[in-house]
């Protein structure tokens, strides 16, 4: 019984923050997006997909949201308007409703032939996922690694920005210096 309660709490939470993502200004929308990620990862836990729940938290809430937060903060974007004119938002909402109704319509038509009360929690989700991932989808997994690698190299190439005479220091050169570089001299006559 409390499982249904948890589902409804998380569902309403994610719906509210999803709506807020769309309708609030820059940084608040990122915060609400983090709320969406956290509630969806809760739903994954409810579904028994522990690995994915934690992965969602780590990748999205942990690193990616930090990145998204950087955008409006670092570039001190001065929001000069909150929402577009009513006409555009009305257009957006109608598109949303249309999309939602057709999806919902599809669901209503198809009766649930499949039994829905199955033991959700697989014995050890992570172990099961691991076996599947590294055997059947091994090449796909390598491909994912390649995609991420390309993304990292691309971003670093884009973002390298040097210039500005900044004094760089070689650590090796710093360590060698020691106390005996000071020599004690006599200020004799005329000798400078």
């Amino acid at each position, binding site marked *: 019984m409390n499982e249904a309660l948890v589902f409804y709490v998380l569902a309403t939470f994610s719906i509210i923050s999803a709506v807020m993502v769309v309708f609030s200004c820059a*940084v*608040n929308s990122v*915060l609400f997006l*983090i709320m969406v990620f956290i509630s969806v990862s809760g739903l994954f836990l409810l579904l028994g997909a*522990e*690995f994915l729940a*934690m*992965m969602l*938290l*780590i990748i999205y*809430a*942990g*690193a990616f*949201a*930090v990145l998204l*937060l*950087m955008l409006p*903060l*670092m570039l001190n974007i001065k929001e000069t308007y909150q929402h577009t004119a009513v006409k555009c938002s009305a257009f957006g909402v109608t598109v949303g409703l249309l999309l939602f109704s057709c999806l919902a319509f599809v669901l209503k038509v198809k009766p649930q032939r499949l039994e829905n009360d199955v033991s959700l929690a697989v014995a*050890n*989700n*992570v172990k099961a996922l691991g076996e599947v991932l590294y055997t059947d989808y091994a090449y796909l997994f390598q491909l994912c690694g390649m995609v991420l690698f390309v993304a990292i190299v691309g971003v670093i190439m884009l973002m390298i920005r040097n210039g500005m005479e900044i004094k760089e220091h070689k*650590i090796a050169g710093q360590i060698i210096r020691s106390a005996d570089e000071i020599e004690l001299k006599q200020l004799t006559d005329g000798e400078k």
Partner: protein
Amino acid sequence: MIISEIIILLSALFAASVLLIYVERKLIAAVRLKKIARVYGLMQPIADAFKLFFNETILPRGKTQVAFMLLPVLFFTSIVACWAVIPVDEGVVLADINAGALFLVAMFFLSICLIVVIGWASDSKYAMFGALHSVAMMVAYELSAMLAIVCVLISSGSMRLSDIVNAQAEMWYCLPHFPMFVVFFIYALVRTNCPPFRMSESGNISDGEYSIEYTSVGYIFIAFARYVNMLLMSAVITVFFLGGWLPPFEVELFLLIPSVIWFGLKMSLCLLIFIFTKTAFPIYRYDNLVQFGWKMFLPFSLVWVIAAAGYTLVSATGKF
């Protein structure tokens, strides 16, 4: 039932951090030729908390007031939540889920993300500066620390923390994975901002802490979270690398001592090291520190993960 266990955990954490504050001040004062009151020193943190509670809360003018009030609590819970998973003794653990290590990693990442938002919510340029500083530093060491945890998971086989501790029965993981132990220890130093891996308080406010703007209750949570963080990091190090509640040798003399005491001893060992680094070292400059994290630790721990995986594969299947 869970509620009572949570209350026990929170009160234990509170008492432990009060003791930690007192011991830290005593040790630092001793190293620095100063003396602090013996008995009343213990009451000092409680008096601080009490005083802070009645301070006036100053809220930023901007539209971030709601976030400003909410975030310290979130930051505190994200750190205390990790304690739910840590096994203090054989069966004594709040929630022994089978993806325990993954949960810990997720909580580490979440608390870092919250630091940025705390810096942003206080609506001041200097707090934001401090937040970005400490987050960039933590992320630099975070990845290699997570890889260090992956090495431990590889050799222990399961993510459940109590299984990891039992798997360390014949040899603690800090011996075979010693470099990874060092990597994770340095990550713990970064997280609990102990020198030399800390943002240097260069005295002026240009790179202050992210918690400058927080006054009374907000500051209690953040300061409290900092000490609970120290306890947490030392507990995680004992669980992953120092064999949680297992005595070092199976000698019957050691078995007499209850295993909780072993867990406490190892934790206090790490805490002592944290405290003494506060007095001993100067602080790396920020960019050396971040370069050190990215260019030295990350490749090294990647190589170590591959080596560990290779070793377990060979020792498990026997063929090369």
